[in-house]
């Protein structure tokens, strides 16, 4: 990776956001004109429980340097217990990713409610900076996502 590439590294981040809470929170941030980095590609899902391990891996394989999953706070899931499953899945996945030598910080789970526009903005900003700090994901680099092939 050249010095020049390093200085212009813009993380590519996929955020799976549940429609009832975290996507609404994202909307609120937008409507309130809060700025957050443009590096995030939001993907709306009906429930964070929709997000399975395979989807997160696929996002990483397709070139995401970081993946964020946003769901309702425990106890508030629109579908009652979807987010409990999400929590366990992401925990299992993060442990497993650590075994691969990838930094598990590249996958993050956050509870963001519909009224937490500020939390959405802060989370995205922090996460983008954390990924910028980590550098391009080795998986993304291999997939040719950063142009070097």
């Amino acid at each position, binding site marked *: 990776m050249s010095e020049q590439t390093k200085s212009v590294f813009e993380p590519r981040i996929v955020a799976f956001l549940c429609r009832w809470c975290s996507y609404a929170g994202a909307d609120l941030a937008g409507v309130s004109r809060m700025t957050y980095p443009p590096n995030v590609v939001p993907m709306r899902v009906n429930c964070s429980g929709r997000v399975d391990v395979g989807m997160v*891996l696929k996002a990483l394989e397709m070139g995401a340097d970081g993946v964020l999953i946003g769901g309702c706070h425990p106890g508030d899931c629109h579908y009652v217990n979807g987010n*409990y499953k999400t929590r366990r899945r992401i925990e*299992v996945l993060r442990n497993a990713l650590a075994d691969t030598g990838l930094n598990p910080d590249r996958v993050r789970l956050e509870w963001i409610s519909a009224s937490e526009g500020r939390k959405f903005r802060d989370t995205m900003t922090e996460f983008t900076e954390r990924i910028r700090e980590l550098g391009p994901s*080795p998986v993304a680099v291999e997939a040719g996502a950063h142009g070097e092939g």
Partner: protein
Amino acid sequence: MAKAKIGIYWAASCGGCDCSLLEVNEQILDVIEVADIVLWPCAADAKYDDLRGFADNEIDLVLFNGAIRTEENREIAEMIRKKTKLLAAYGSCAHTGGVIGLANLSSRDEIFTTVYGAKENWPQVEASQHGFALHLPEFLERLTPLESVVEVDYFVPGCPPPKEIVRTLFSALISGDLPEKGTVFASEKNLCEECSRTREQKRITRIVRPHEEEPDPNLCLLDQGYMCMGPATRGGCGAVCPAANMPCTGCAGPTANIADQGAAMLNTVASLIGAEEEGEDHLEAEDAVIAQLADVYGTFFRFASANSLFGKRYHERNTTR
């Protein structure tokens, strides 16, 4: 009527797939009635020069077992592809990389260091001994399934494919009624469909390793906390491992609708883990169970890691391990 010409070849393999062809016992005599085995290094004397001598598409069917590990494996796979009309990836290694795919977690240098020690002791592609030039095929940096180097017409999963599947394959060969290209010689359903154990879909409150306890012989192994790969694995084997009180290890690879067998199982296990109820009071108990997963690669990715993100190791700094 002219006999068909068939071949059986092994790349990076253990020989188990070759032996599995004999598990049909007397049916092998029916096979040789209709076909000449023109290549089978394990059991017959045709050499590479004989293989080179065949015209393109002269052989009717080759059952190719083993993974692509060395330059020689690749070269012979390409040669065989030219010489045969139909090519089957036979067995787990040819199909999905097999258990030897776990070698991809290390670099070639790491493997050679473990096996041979210091670099000056390593085997060489070109060497000279007493003035004579000797050559070894290069050990490739990554092991891959057959499909990575040539187009494959049939897939016969299993480590090795069970005799019921071999019988089906041989029956098709004997009758001349080979199925369409792309056919997978296995069940379309997962192992659970064939397993005689009763599934109650309990929560996994504890991960149990097979040597820790004797399982209840009638209940689902996953329900009892054993890491059984059945839900993500193709059936067709009769679920003999669960019948022997051992969890399925996934040797037949994933069902058709699953791209990554290990990822699918990680998902399933995570969903099932927990206390009897879900809720904020139970999160710590859940985490304690998750922490019991000791070997993700060996448990969930043992046979089909080659095309998964879990098919290699990465080397980031600042990781927790």
